[in-house]
């Protein structure tokens, strides 16, 4: 049943490539959702159903809704497509693309020359085991994550609030 993995991985790679090259923000976001859903399918194939469910609910659901909400609030219209077309010239992206391709080649060589045994014995890890590990061994990290989320909430509320004086010429209002 390996071809299901390779098909899903191909979908993930192609849709992620569309994300970084697409000019319309909403279309790129739809491709990003497709990429996240295919990664969720891969999680399920690796025997991690809780991770797959969380990927769909939190990543493809909540975070993407947050980003699309901000795109709607900015409300930039059709002029952004031509603007992106002007920004995304080949002279701009050929350097970073080459550097990233070099890094990818290094990683592939490192993985393929390493001592990774492909024994094909993956273990099914259900939500029960994850919950037990999360609330026994990692309970301090759970508390720290709650404090991180609270700090994120307060910070987002403070930063996104619109000021009365919002001219932007003097930098002491923030």
């Amino acid at each position, binding site marked *: 049943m*390996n071809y299901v*993995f*390779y098909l899903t*991985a191909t979908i993930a*790679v192609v849709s*992620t490539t569309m*994300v*970084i090259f697409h000019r319309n*923000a909403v279309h*790129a976001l739809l491709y*990003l959702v497709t*990429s996240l859903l295919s990664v969720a399918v*891969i*999680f399920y*194939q*690796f*025997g*991690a159903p809780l*991770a797959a469910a*969380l*990927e769909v609910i*939190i*990543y493809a659901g*909540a*975070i993407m809704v*947050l*980003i699309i909400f*901000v795109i709607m*609030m*900015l409300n930039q219209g059709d002029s*952004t497509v031509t603007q992106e077309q002007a*920004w995304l010239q080949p002279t*701009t992206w050929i350097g970073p*693309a080459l*550097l*990233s*391709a070099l890094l*990818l080649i290094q990683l*592939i060589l490192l993985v393929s020359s390493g001592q*990774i045994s*492909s024994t*094909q014995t*993956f*273990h*099914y*890890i259900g939500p029960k085991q*994850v919950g037990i590990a*999360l609330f026994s061994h*990692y309970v301090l*990290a759970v508390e720290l994550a709650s404090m*991180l*989320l609270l700090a*994120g909430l307060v*910070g*987002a*509320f*403070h*930063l*996104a609030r619109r000021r009365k004086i*919002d001219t932007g010429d003097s930098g002491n209002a923030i």
Partner: protein
Amino acid sequence: MPFETAPGLEAGVLLASILFCLGLAGLMMRRNVIFMLMSVEVCTNAAALMFVVAGAHWGNADGQVMFIFVVTLAAAEVAIALALVLQFYHRKHTVDIDQLSELRG
């Protein structure tokens, strides 16, 4: 209980590497802040995929625990980053990251 239909560890690691490099390339080549944010999400997702694949290989629940923490981190990060994008747009009326150059670094 071994999971029968799973692909190899190398395939998972290679997929995570490819996705991370794609996100990194997008982060470097885009100028729109929202696209840069999406690329950061791709990178975070690739790291989370790596955690889950390694956890599945060694039969350990820690990989999925780390996945939950990565998702929590990504949620907090994207909330702060989107608030910063809104503030940036209200000040400069653009989403070009090159406009933030007052520091002259």
